[in-house]
């Protein structure tokens, strides 16, 4: 922490982006900033609200060289950003050097990663000597599929604000009395051989892998995967979803949890959701589904429940009258599945630690894969 341990006395903080770098689309800047703040809100009771006018606790701006404070930037490289400890006026504010090349990838200077560090200062954290910590002062190449906070960061921020309120917070959110006592955070790791997924879906050309409170976004042609909190995209969506599928031609993605479902477009939940799943045509005795996917070639949506499935044919607008055994239609896929999605001409079924690649033309499993097959392990 800073000398005197300045911190915010409130838990709901406001932020405002005063101007935008020309290096990125404004929508990408908004998303990077929102995601960077959600890193800290995921481990504390803090909440962040975006303002588009007037004053805000954390004012965010891009500038080069001298910019009305005592710490002029120094051109490309060197100092790339700075932020001030909590307080009035420019307390909490974060400034980003416009002479850097801001990106949303691992090339150039990644805005999300730098912003997450600077917001650590805005909340009261000082630099860390731990070279793995986000609050380490030197910029390093990072793995976007790994949650950026290290235990040292979590110790510091929870020392100031306490742990997250959500009961199922992954990080053993015990009150940190002595930072050395706290346990390692239990975060999902893509390379854990026992990794299982709650749901998998395509999403605007990428693949989304849901697990507890988080999801990974992975473009099949790109090595790394982005790691996000579900709440950073869809604040109202509960963690631990059951199933998800995309209808690409409508740019809609349907996400299920229990007997409810939501429809999202990008990072927006469409109005009127959640709705009950029986509005889709399920009988009342069906209280949840395990997995689902939409086969655009057939115009059919498959809903998997235990070891059976129901399919909805959009052309005839009819749902199967009674569940069909999965192995009847998909030989080799036996028992309950966790998740399923379609990629190119194959279906990928996730059953516990296994992933089955299924060829619908040959009607058989063509490959047995690990669940982390899609990640750079």
């Amino acid at each position, binding site marked *: 922490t800073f000398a005197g341990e300045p911190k915010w006395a409130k838990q709901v903080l406001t932020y405002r982006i005063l101007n935008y770098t020309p290096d990125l689309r404004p929508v990408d800047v908004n998303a990077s900033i929102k995601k960077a703040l959600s890193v800290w809100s995921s481990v504390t009771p803090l909440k962040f609200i975006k303002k588009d006018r007037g004053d805000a606790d954390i004012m965010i701006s891009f500038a080069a060289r001298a910019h009305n404070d005592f710490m002029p930037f120094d051109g490309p*490289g060197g100092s790339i950003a700075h932020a001030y400890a909590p307080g009035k006026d420019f307390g909490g504010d974060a400034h980003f050097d416009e002479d850097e090349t801001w990106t949303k990838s691992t090339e150039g200077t990644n805005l999300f990663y730098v912003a997450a560090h600077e917001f650590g200062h805005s909340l009261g954290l000082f630099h860390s000597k731990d070279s793995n910590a986000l609050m380490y*002062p030197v*910029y390093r190449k990072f793995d976007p599929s790994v949650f950026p906070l290290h235990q040292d960061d979590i110790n510091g921020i929870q020392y100031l604000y306490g742990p997250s309120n959500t009961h199922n917070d992954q990080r053993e959110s015990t009150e940190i009395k002595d930072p050395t006592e706290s346990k390692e955070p239990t975060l999902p790791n893509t390379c854990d051989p026992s990794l299982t997924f709650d749901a998998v879906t395509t999403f605007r050309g990428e693949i989304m892998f849901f697990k507890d409170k988080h999801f990974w976004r992975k473009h099949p042609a790109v090595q790394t995967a982005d790691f996000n909190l579900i709440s950073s995209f869809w604040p109202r969506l509960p963690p631990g979803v059951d199933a998800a599928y995309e209808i690409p031609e409508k740019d809609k993605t349907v996400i299920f949890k229990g007997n409810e479902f939501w429809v999202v477009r990008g990072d927006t939940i469409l109005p009127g959701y959640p709705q009950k799943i029986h509005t889709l045509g399920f009988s009342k005795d069906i209280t949840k589904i395990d997995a689902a996917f939409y086969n655009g070639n057939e115009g059919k949506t498959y809903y998997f429940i235990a070891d059976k499935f129901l399919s909805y044919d959009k052309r005839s607008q009819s749902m199967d009258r009674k569940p069909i055994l999965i192995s009847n239609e998909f030989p080799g896929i036996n028992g309950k599945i966790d998740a399923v999605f379609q990629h190119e001409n194959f279906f990928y079924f996730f059953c516990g630690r296994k992933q089955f690649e299924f060829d619908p033309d040959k009607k058989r499993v063509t490959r047995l894969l690990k669940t982390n097959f899609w990640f750079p392990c």
Partner: protein
Amino acid sequence: LPAGTRQKEEGGIQLTQKYLENYYGFKKDGESFIWKSNSPMTKKIKEMQEFFGLEVTGKVDSGTLDLVQKRRCGFPDVAGFT
């Protein structure tokens, strides 16, 4: 030292000095630059090397020179900055 090496060394010293001024509250005093083991600059170099877990030599060695050229947060590493 050959001119080229000397220039390079002086460049490294200036780079390091700027780094220490920016992030370690180093204030270059009036006296000419003296390589005393307890000179203010040497002390500050040791402070920085200790922060980053480098070998604490008090000299602008290659590890230190490499570090001062890396992109970083503009906020200082030493407390008491207001």
